[in-house]
């Protein structure tokens, strides 16, 4: 009897076990996994610490290293873009020689000792806020009070916003001035001493301008604007960037004027009603031989001017969509324009400008990357072909002198006629669109020519163009230490004009 009872109890317990145990087991796993996932996501999203340096010669960012809880910066990283310094280690002593900015042909000398907080600059003893350190053959100096080194060494003015990690050399800091032009609706004009190129995006009715490469500062943090459209503005500096937020009662739109020295903020126009008769640009999509399960990379899409970036949504797909591909990104720097400037930075800046120009023409835009992120060529193709764009444009830059527009040449010749509604091979999906790509390249060259610039149209064996199932071109702009050698807004304007002409019902 006892035995039977035990058996029955065991059987019942076994049923309960089988039914509920998997769920019970999942709980601790979930409790364990969720914090791990949160930690991983937050760690991957965390921006590395950096110091933004604004000098008359160059604007650049350098990494900050934390040693014993103190922020340090590499001395060579800091001063290399300003000239041609020589830093030689001799045992634990580091000797620095930099061209004297005040007298040509002469050099300023400094000496640092590893583990010592005293340094000799131009023959004078200087005290650092912490001992100098050496790591991976780099001399690191404490970031706190770095002005005590730079002022005597470079004999220049230094303004250091230490908490915000922004260092202004030679009086480069320039204040933002704003002017509220009352009207129905009002316009807020933001004036800058030099052309600026902020990252602009909106969150609800707030327009956020983030300045990373521009030495802009503001004297006030918060300002009430007391207007029907604009309610307030706020300014914040953090981790090497300045952020200006304009709050309004309606969605806002930013436009550049005065060759980038003025930003006009106004009410965003109502989104255009898409024509119901417009045909979908393409239906057939190629399949990657090895990427059919590849994840679509994060893309930012903005169908209305000034709208907040949102994840790719399908359906509905805009009837006329442009996919802008800022070449390279992340660990792929592209061509090195100078030691501190790489192709990926120039292409992103140009892509953002092109997005502005296209949005101003009421054209929906998807950016394949809107930050310094890694994207493989296959991911770019997958994201583009899933978005079914009407036009694809890939942006590149090189340390050259001429502007090139490239049309794709398929590496594999095929006599078979490409049909858009048929299966398109991955390596030659562009074949069905090559004629349209050619005409788009010619239109872009003409639009550039109208703006008194010159562009050469050339064929190129360039990925990801071969696999793009849409009219596609690549633009390679010449660049030097100061960025693009041609006006960025003019180039973006010309490309946007050529693309807008292809829009059904658009300007011809």
């Amino acid at each position, binding site marked *: 009897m006892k035995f039977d009872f035990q058996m029955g109890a065991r059987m019942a317990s076994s049923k309960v076990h089988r039914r509920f145990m998997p769920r019970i087991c999942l709980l601790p796993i979930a409790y364990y996994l969720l914090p791990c996932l949160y930690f991983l996501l937050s760690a991957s999203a965390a921006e590395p610490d950096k110091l933004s340096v604004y000098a008359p010669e160059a604007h650049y960012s350098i990494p900050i290293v934390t040693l014993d809880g103190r922020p340090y910066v590499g001395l060579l990283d800091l001063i290399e873009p300003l000239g041609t310094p020589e830093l030689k280690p001799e045992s634990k002593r580091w000797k620095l020689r930099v061209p004297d900015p005040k007298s040509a042909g002469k050099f300023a000398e400094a000496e640092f000792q590893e583990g010592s907080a005293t340094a000799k600059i131009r023959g004078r003893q200087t005290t650092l806020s912490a001992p100098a350190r050496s790591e991976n053959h780099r001399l690191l100096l404490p970031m706190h009070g770095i002005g005590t080194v730079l002022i005597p060494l470079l004999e220049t003015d230094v303004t250091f916003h230490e908490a915000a990690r922004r260092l202004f050399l030679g009086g480069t800091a320039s204040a933002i001035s704003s002017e509220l032009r009352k009207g129905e609706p009002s316009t807020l004009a933001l004036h800058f001493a030099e052309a600026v190129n902020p990252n602009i995006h909106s969150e609800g009715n707030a327009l956020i301008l983030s300045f990373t490469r521009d030495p802009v500062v503001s004297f006030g943090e918060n300002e009430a604007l007391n207007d029907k459209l604009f309610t307030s503005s706020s300014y914040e500096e953090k981790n090497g960037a300045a952020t200006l937020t304009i709050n309004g009662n309606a969605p806002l739109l930013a436009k550049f004027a005065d060759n980038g020295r003025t930003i006009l903020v106004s009410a965003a126009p109502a989104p255009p009603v898409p024509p119901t008769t417009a045909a979908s640009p393409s239906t057939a999509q190629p399949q990657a031989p090895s990427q059919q399960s590849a994840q679509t990379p994060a893309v930012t899409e903005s169908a209305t001017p000034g709208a907040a970036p949102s994840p790719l949504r399908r359906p509905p797909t805009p009837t006329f969509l442009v996919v802008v591909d800022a070449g390279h990104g992340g660990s792929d720097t592209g061509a090195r324009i100078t030691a501190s400037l790489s192709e990926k930075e120039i292409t992103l800046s140009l892509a953002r400008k092109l997005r502005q120009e296209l949005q101003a023409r009421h054209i929906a835009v998807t950016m394949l990357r809107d930050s310094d992120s890694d994207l*493989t060529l296959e991911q770019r193709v997958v994201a583009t072909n899933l978005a079914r764009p009407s036009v694809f444009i890939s942006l590149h830059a090189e340390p050259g002198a001429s502007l*090139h527009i490239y049309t794709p040449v398929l590496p594999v010749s095929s006599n078979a006629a490409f049909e858009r509604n048929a299966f398109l091979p991955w390596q030659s999906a562009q074949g069905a669109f090559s004629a349209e790509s050619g005409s788009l390249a010619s239109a872009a060259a003409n639009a550039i020519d109208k703006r008194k610039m010159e562009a050469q149209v050339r064929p190129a*064996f360039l990925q990801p163009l071969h696999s793009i199932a849409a009219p596609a071109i690549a633009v390679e702009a010449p660049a030097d230490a100061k960025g693009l050698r041609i006006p960025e807004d003019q180039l973006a304007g010309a490309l946007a004009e050529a693309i807008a002409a292809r829009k059904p019902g658009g300007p011809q």
Partner: protein
Amino acid sequence: MIPRNVQITLVLLLVAILGSGIYILLLHRRTEEGLRRASDQRPVAAPVAGSNETVKLTIAYDEDGVFRTRDISAIVPSESSARAKSVLEALIGYYLSKPSPHELADGSAVNSVFMVNQKLAVVDLNQALADGHRSGVMVEDFTVISLIDTLATNLPQVEQVKILINGKERETLAGHADIRSIYSTTAIHKVVAQLQ
């Protein structure tokens, strides 16, 4: 007592005899060494099985953005893989000489060329060529086009070319030019014709 002038003459004669003796000894040794080398049958250089031929190189000119054909004289083996490698080596050698119309990184070379059915050439370039290559759409494209067109011009039976870097597939040469695809020599000839 021997007069002083006779003493000097005798010393000079003795020095002359001694000098001549040493010189004769040196000549004797040199001759012996020459005879020994001449009779040595050990191979000291790889045999060049081929004839001196005119090789057509498709040269990229970066400044002008064009391709031009240059004829050079080179010893080219008759076996197709070795022939393809020699032709590409001649082209890379042209680019490595200074001043170069299209600079390549020092140490750039072709590891080997494999012929598949005499129609597909698999060109294995070394790591130095790819890693040290300048980054840019045009400069990278020019290297790829120039290599393939030179190969196809000198080996007309080649219809397709595949490029590997150190025996491995790579997406792009230096961030731009597609080298994962198999290239059709017809498509390459057309591009070269457009840019001549």
